[in-house]
């Protein structure tokens, strides 16, 4: 496992009255996990048309970033491909591409290409970094204005942050709260203050704080789409999830030793599994009767374990929530919410899956969703890896 982890979080609000956004943030990484590309694109206008422009731009920028082509050529291709707006007779979409490469010796190398979006912010150890990007004029035929692309290559170390945002953020409060809007400098000092108060603030939380502040400046009626993305380089946070009793009871001891020895957050999901750990460590299990909802049984408490939940129902709902990109705060205070909270702040998740079949779950009267533990865990892993870019490992016992 790498010594550095790249934590990326984004938050987006649509322009008031729109059901679809004109800002598009895309995020993906290559199969060997050494390169991550994030693209923030803002299409002309708002609503569906803007979303089409922005999605096209972001997708193209994304594909081209993983190719060996030079970024300036990629930008020209993007501009030439975009459909022309019927009213304004121009094809236009702003974009920022952050190509992040994780290299063991040099740390993280960031290649930043910006076109007409507010300039990105970089915080080195909590202090805003000032730098001059290289400029490149595209001189594209048929362009309706001068098109200048900014390109910078920066290295990032542990504790550094990159912040991308759309003009909905920098122009928040324009004409109402602030004459010229929040502006880049306003966002800069807001982030600086946030980091000073909480130096370990996660990317998702920081991105949400910025969009929330922008909305507040717009007096809770967004004048434009508001999007923020935060990239944070830090050491990985590890979480262990244990679910299901071992296939052979003789392995119970081994399972418990692994739980005790693990450094990081620990979740036990499953009544029988919790009983095994409780019995062998002599730590009592106490059910918390307040933390339940109509389809999720209550959590329990055990010393040395961060969360103890019921197994299949909870895992099933966690899998669904992850696949639908629902955040923890959308759930009532039950096991699923607490489970998702821990996953949100984890970078590397290790699963120990017991493969014993629970006879009671084979009862035909029980809902079908209570399927096979192994399939459920692989769904959770896939969602964590593909949608949240977390690292996962599974061990069967």
């Amino acid at each position, binding site marked *: 496992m790498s010594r550095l982890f790249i934590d990326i979080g984004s938050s987006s609000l649509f322009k008031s009255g729109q059901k679809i956004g004109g800002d598009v943030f895309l995020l993906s990484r290559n199969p060997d996990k050494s390169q991550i590309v994030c693209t923030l694109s803002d299409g002309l206008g708002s609503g569906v048309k803007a979303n089409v422009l922005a999605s096209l731009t972001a997708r193209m920028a994304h594909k081209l970033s993983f190719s060996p082509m030079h970024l300036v050529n990629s930008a020209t291709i993007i501009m030439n491909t975009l459909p022309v707006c019927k009213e304004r007779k121009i094809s236009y979409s702003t974009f920022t591409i952050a190509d992040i490469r994780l290299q063991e010796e040099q740390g993280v190398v960031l290649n930043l290409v910006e076109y007409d979006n507010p300039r990105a912010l970089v915080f080195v150890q909590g202090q805003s970094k000032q730098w001059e990007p290289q400029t490149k004029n595209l001189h594209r035929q048929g362009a309706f204005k001068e098109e200048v692309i900014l390109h910078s290559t920066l290295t990032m170390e542990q504790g550094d942050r990159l912040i991308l945002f759309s003009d909905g953020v920098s122009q928040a409060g324009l004409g109402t709260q602030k004459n010229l809007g929040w502006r880049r400098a306003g966002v800069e000092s807001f982030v600086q203050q946030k980091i000073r108060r909480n130096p370990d603030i996660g990317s998702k939380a920081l991105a949400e704080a910025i969009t929330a502040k922008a909305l507040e400046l717009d007096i809770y009626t967004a004048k434009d789409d508001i999007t923020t993305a935060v990239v944070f380089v830090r050491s990985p946070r590890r979480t262990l999830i244990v679910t299901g009793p071992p296939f052979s009871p003789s392995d119970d001891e081994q399972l418990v030793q692994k739980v005790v020895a693990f450094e990081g957050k620990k979740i036990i999901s499953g*009544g*029988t599994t*919790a*009983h095994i750990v409780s019995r062998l460590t002599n730590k009592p*299990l106490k*059910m918390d*009767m307040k933390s*339940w909802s*109509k*389809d999720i*049984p*209550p959590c*329990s408490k055990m010393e040395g374990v961060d969360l*103890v939940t*019921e*197994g*299949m*129902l909870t895992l099933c709902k966690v899998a669904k929530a992850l696949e639908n990109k629902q955040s923890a705060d959308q759930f009532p205070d039950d096991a699923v919410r607490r489970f998702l909270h821990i996953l949100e702040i984890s970078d590397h998740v290790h699963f120990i899956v017991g493969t014993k079949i*629970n*006879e*009671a*779950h084979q*009862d035909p*009267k*029980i*809902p079908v969703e*209570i399927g096979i533990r192994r399939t459920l865990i692989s769904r959770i892993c896939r969602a964590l890896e593909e949608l949240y870019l977390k690292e996962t490992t599974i061990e069967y016992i």
Partner: protein
Amino acid sequence: MVTQKIMVRICMGTACFVQGGADLLLYGDFLDSELQQRIEVEGVSCLGCCKEHQRGLRPPYVQIGEQLHAEVDQTKFILLIKEALDA
């Protein structure tokens, strides 16, 4: 006169929860407050009765005092508690 509270343990294992156990957690709503004061309710992650269906018993399981009961719904829950308190 000080009477000892009766311990009521509701199984919250997956099989019990989906087959009616969840309804029993609403005891605060359907059980008379007078009865509520005389019992102590505790959730258990599994009472270990999952294999009892071989003997024709079905979830959800509830343990009242030392006695184990199967197929407990809200009505049966009230009756069982009254019985246990009267005994």
